[in-house]
């Protein structure tokens, strides 16, 4: 066991993947000597050289489009998109090209590309630097999408994503880059596409991903003080969703609140709510409730605490579920 920040855990996970397979290369803006704007690739350029850590020209479509060509050549590119809100110039290359190319080749080619996306709010940043665009990509067949919430998951999931022969969108909750957590370098915690119960409880189930998991744990702690037992599920994988543990939890508690920073309309939370309603209808004591960012553009940073779901907003939903 060792104690790292998530940024450090990702750095070590990338390093381990690069040691394990010399076809793994990193591509992105400012990821070389600077180590990326979040320092996730710190030191990797010095260790592996500029042929494996490519400081690219500034162009997100170029990064992903060139990664596709490199994958056709046998490489396993790991692309860094500098911030969530900068991913859209690459949208065609991700959704129309990368996501479809495995199917278009009918089995004759594979596209093992990881696209790392620092995402989410809570960091007081300027416009386009705090968004949660995961629904666009979870909606697109051909892509896998995961998001770790702890340093240990980050360390293992980045290696698992790189080992996958499919394109993986790897959403990194940037507000969780700096808190430290225990990392077990010896053994992988769980397969990539699995949800995990991170706190046991009996009255209400809370599910979320990325930075939201720590908010849910806070809410559970507060609720425990008031006599409510809350089970918290860390989604970890948004495409595919591992519904098994979630269904089991809902069958026990009868109440589910889905929380996310992203706007709620047509979101991953909507999909989970609909699926649980279809598959656990008779277990439910209350409608599945969603707590989301509002359906408005992410506001200027001084208003982000009003926009982002916090423990109180989650607990408000818990109360509504309990009192239904």
């Amino acid at each position, binding site marked *: 066991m060792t104690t790292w920040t998530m940024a450090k855990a990702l750095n070590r996970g990338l390093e381990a993947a690069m040691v394990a397979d010399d076809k793994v290369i990193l591509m992105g803006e400012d990821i070389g000597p600077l180590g990326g704007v979040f320092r996730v690739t710190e030191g990797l350029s010095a260790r592996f050289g500029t042929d494996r850590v490519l400081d690219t020209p500034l162009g997100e479509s170029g990064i992903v489009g060139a990664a596709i060509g490199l994958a056709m050549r046998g490489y396993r590119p790991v692309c860094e998109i500098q911030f969530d809100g900068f991913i859209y110039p690459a949208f065609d290359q991700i959704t129309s090209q990368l996501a479809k190319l*495995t199917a278009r080749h009918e089995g004759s080619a594979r596209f093992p590309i990881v696209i790392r996306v620092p995402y989410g709010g809570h960091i007081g940043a300027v416009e386009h630097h705090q968004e949660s665009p995961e629904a666009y990509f979870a909606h697109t067949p051909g892509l*896998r999408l995961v998001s770790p919430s702890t340093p240990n998951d980050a360390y293992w999931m980045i290696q698992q994503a790189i080992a996958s022969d*499919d394109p993986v969108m790897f959403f990194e909750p940037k507000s969780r880059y700096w808190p430290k957590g225990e990392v077990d370098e010896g053994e992988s915690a769980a397969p990539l596409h699995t949800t995990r119960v991170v706190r046991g409880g009996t009255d209400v189930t809370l599910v979320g991903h990325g930075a939201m998991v720590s908010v849910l744990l806070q809410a559970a702690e507060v609720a425990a003080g008031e006599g409510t037992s809350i089970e918290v599920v860390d989604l970890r994988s948004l495409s595919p969703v591992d519904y098994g543990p979630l269904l089991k939890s809902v069958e026990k508690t009868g109440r589910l609140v889905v929380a996310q920073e992203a706007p709620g309309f047509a979101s991953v939370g909507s999909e989970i709510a609909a699926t649980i309603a279809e598959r656990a209808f008779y277990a439910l004591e209350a409608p599945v409730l969603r707590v989301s960012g509002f359906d408005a553009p992410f506001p200027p940073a001084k208003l982000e605490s009003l926009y982002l779901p916090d423990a109180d907003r989650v607990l408000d939903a818990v109360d509504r579920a309990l009192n239904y």
Partner: protein
Amino acid sequence: MADAPQHDAVSVQMISPEGRFEPNAAAEEFLPYLDRLDEDRLRTFYRDMAVIRRFDAEVGHLQRQGQLALWVPSHGQEAAQVGSGHAARPQDSIFPAYREHAVAKIRGVDLIDIVRMLRGLTHGGWVPAEHGNFHLYTLVIGSQTLHATGYAMGIALDGAPTGDPEKDEAVMVYFGDGATSQGDTNEAMIWAASYATPQVFFLQNNHWAISVPVSRQSRTPLVDRARGFGLRSTRIDGNDVLASYAVTAKQLDDARAGRGPGFIEAMTYRIGAHTTSDDPTRYRGADELKFWEARDPITRYRHHLEQRELADAAFFADVESEAADLAADTRRRTLALGTPGIDLIFDNVYAEDHPVPREQKKWLQDYEAGFGEAR
């Protein structure tokens, strides 16, 4: 002429529109590359151009008869495609747009696979590694330029060129004048220059992006624009198969030798419609069409072969009969194409097991089985 501002640059020309071998001054540095062509090869160029034109016409008819969703004619662009296609070496990789039927044939693609795609039976059609490294068609304009550049970056990352042109690889990517306005095409040139990729950008300037003239895409000759990115750039008479061959051969060999990426602007013309859904009479004049029909690449090259006494009537009759056979064969095989099964929807959405397509495939199979008969 819709393309007046485009005429400021000189094009490499080997054969005059009348078929005489009259290389212009711009052609001089490329002349040695013609020495690679023996008489058989010279005749093959004609054969490939004539045969693909007949195939193109036949599939156009099949579309009109309801056998294809869409057809994309190559009529008029055969010299640009056949010359450049033959200039590529076996180890090279080709990234087409979606009109390069002649290049597909040269690289070993079974043309029925292109028909299958446009009939609605596949989104792919062939295995590139088994068909001359000719990659799949790409319908989003310009997206393939970045794939080509990434692939070429991979060649460079795999190691420095050995200096042996029989072994060192290069990449060629095809696109049209419309694609030069796309961000991806411009990014691809930036990346290619930045990483000094072994790559040639082959622009077929056919003067029209569906209904929009090239003068709307650029007010300067596109050959000049490429120079601004730091690419070695040459404009050619795209209806001159020898110019297309020689310039592409030099550009590819320069690229494979580590001299960085190149760019070729082939001035040609889309004689037919953009696709079978298009109606060019709505946006371009008969005079322009007549001008270009008089510069037909196949007629020009036939005159050239005749003047050099490289081909006789028997040869042309043989080509005619091969073309007719291919057309008949294509018609017969098109009508015999079946319908793909449910597998095609689900089986390769992901390379590794994924519960969603797996479960949805099972659901659809059971649902279909519920009707009591195979559908």
